[in-house]
């Protein structure tokens, strides 16, 4: 209670190179984050390919809010709050499906899939017609970029383009890996729950310091060369784009190696169909460049993480509980590569993943650690002396440096300081 009545002094909790442990453990701070971050800024909701046909719907979340992402009969994507305006019942209870309308199971109110109230039993019980007045709540703003659907519960604020800022081109870069210029999410999601604050996950996604330590076991038995890219002498970099977004950019290493598909640990010859389609779509030279660069490793604040072959969505449940939803990226028009991406994804991530189960262990240990009293702070000073600020404000550091975390916290502070 004391924290609620006393204004939190963000400046005192967030310094340039250290943050206070209570930022991960204080329930009042978590509730304030919901209001100032999750219910105010742009949050990734889902991908249009998850609801390909008219009347397809799927349940998603924005913070703790459950939303129905639904394509109406005209093909327009809507984001609706899953709450009946009559008595507050959950209107949609199936995780996904196809429906022209939703009928509340409590008193039979019926809503079209664009949220409009179409009818209700015994209308003479109301003096006026309630249709047009009461409907399903709509997420205040919804915008889609290259199939990625974002929602904001705030009616005004920066546009999605402003929010994505310098990170937007990473999505352009991603979709080029499909010979048809589109990605699809068609393989369903794994849901991996961790007893940890959501920001530990955000920070870890573009932490290039940990892989050689945390993932030593799988790098050792799989004899994977990927771990070697995360060392201080690597030409890979960490980049902070602003607005909380960041990436680990391994392209300098892959360009050095100069072999298409090395980013995926394979060769052109192993994916002949994909290679042929890419060359047909982009021409030999550009296809080669795309297939050398591969997909980048990007964290779009606060909840979308594109990890080369996977897409993660972070969902906070409580101050110390978070779910990672993860699926394989699928490139439209690339069935042979897609099969490999699904297989590698299943090995790497999810509750039993060779990589993610160890990341999850660190999330949970850090959560327990920051509940201890001494020291009170977390130190984020790595590489502060050697990072470079570009003319566009983008900050670049050594791949093992804390550049992304420092940037994220400054953005976080600006969001939390806002009235």
């Amino acid at each position, binding site marked *: 209670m004391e924290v609620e009545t006393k204004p939190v002094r963000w400046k005192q909790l967030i310094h340039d190179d250290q943050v206070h442990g209570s930022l991960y453990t204080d329930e009042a701070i978590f509730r304030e984050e919901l209001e100032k971050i999750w219910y105010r800024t742009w949050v990734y909701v889902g991908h249009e390919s998850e609801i390909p046909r008219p009347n397809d719907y799927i349940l998603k979340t924005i913070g703790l809010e459950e939303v129905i992402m639904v394509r109406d009969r005209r093909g327009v994507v809507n984001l609706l709050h899953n709450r009946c305006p009559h008595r507050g019942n959950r209107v949609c209870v199936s995780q996904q499906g196809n429906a022209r309308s939703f009928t509340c199971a409590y008193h039979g109110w019926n809503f079209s899939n664009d949220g409009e109230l179409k009818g209700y039993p015994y209308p003479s019980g109301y003096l006026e017609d309630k249709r047009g007045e009461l409907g399903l709540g709509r997420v205040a703003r919804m915008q889609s970029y290259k199939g990625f659907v974002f929602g904001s519960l705030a009616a005004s604020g920066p546009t999605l383009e402003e929010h994505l800022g310098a990170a937007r081109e990473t999505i352009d870069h991603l979709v080029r890996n499909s010979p048809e210029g589109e990605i699809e999410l068609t393989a*369903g999601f794994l*849901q991996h729950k*961790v007893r940890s604050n959501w920001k530990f996950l955000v920070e870890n996604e573009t932490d290039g310091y940990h892989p050689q330590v945390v993932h030593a076991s799988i790098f050792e038995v799989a004899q994977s060369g990927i771990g070697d890219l995360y060392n201080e002498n690597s030409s890979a970099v960490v980049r902070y784009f602003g607005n909380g977004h960041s990436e680990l950019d391994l392209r300098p290493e892959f360009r050095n190696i100069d072999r298409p598909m090395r980013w995926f640990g394979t060769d052109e010859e192993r994916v002949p169909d994909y290679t042929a389609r890419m060359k047909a779509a982009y021409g030999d030279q550009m296809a080669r460049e795309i297939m050398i660069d591969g997909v980048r490793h990007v964290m779009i604040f606060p909840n979308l993480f594109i990890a080369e072959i996977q897409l993660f969505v972070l969902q906070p449940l409580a101050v110390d509980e978070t*779910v990672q939803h993860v699926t394989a990226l699928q490139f439209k028009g690339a069935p042979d590569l897609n*099969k490999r991406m699904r297989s590698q994804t*299943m090995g790497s991530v999810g*509750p039993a993943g060779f990589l993610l189960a160890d990341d999850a262990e660190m999330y949970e240990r850090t959560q327990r650690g920051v509940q201890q009293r001494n020291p009170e702070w977390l130190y984020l000073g790595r590489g502060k002396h050697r990072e470079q600020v570009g003319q566009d404000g983008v900050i670049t550091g050594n791949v093992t440096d804390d550049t992304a975390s420092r940037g994220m916290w400054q953005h976080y502070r600006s969001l939390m300081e806002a009235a």
Partner: protein
Amino acid sequence: MTADEMLELCEVTQFIYREARLQDDHAYADWESLWADDGVYWVPANGEDIDPDAQMSIIYDNRSRIALRVGQLRTGKRHTQLPRSRLRRVASNIELIDRQADTLRVRANAMIFESNSRGETVWATRNEYTLRRVDGVLRMVRKKVVLANNDSALYSLSFLI
């Protein structure tokens, strides 16, 4: 049920108990030796009848990936198993579903209690085995583990289920 069938069911039951014990005891190499060369270890997500070649599964290991999984556990650096989960499981409801030449299909249920640094977790599964007699002993050709809550968000599942 004939006497031969009863003997066979008894042998299958003993096999399942042994597998459960090796898993509980983290006897990784002994557990791996229960697999046939073409073994497939499958833990589906989001239902029980998904197509594992098209949809995400929690585990979908071919034989070489089973070896990788065991190999990772044996490095001593698999942090999520440091310290190891303390496990105790009960396997029951064992039914012989089908027999074709040297191949048996078996179903069982399992309740697994896990205690680790996060806390205590109970896992409930239906297990479907395809077993093959190789040189006189049973080997796992396929083990499918259907978690009762596989459509929900799950904590890390890093022991052998």
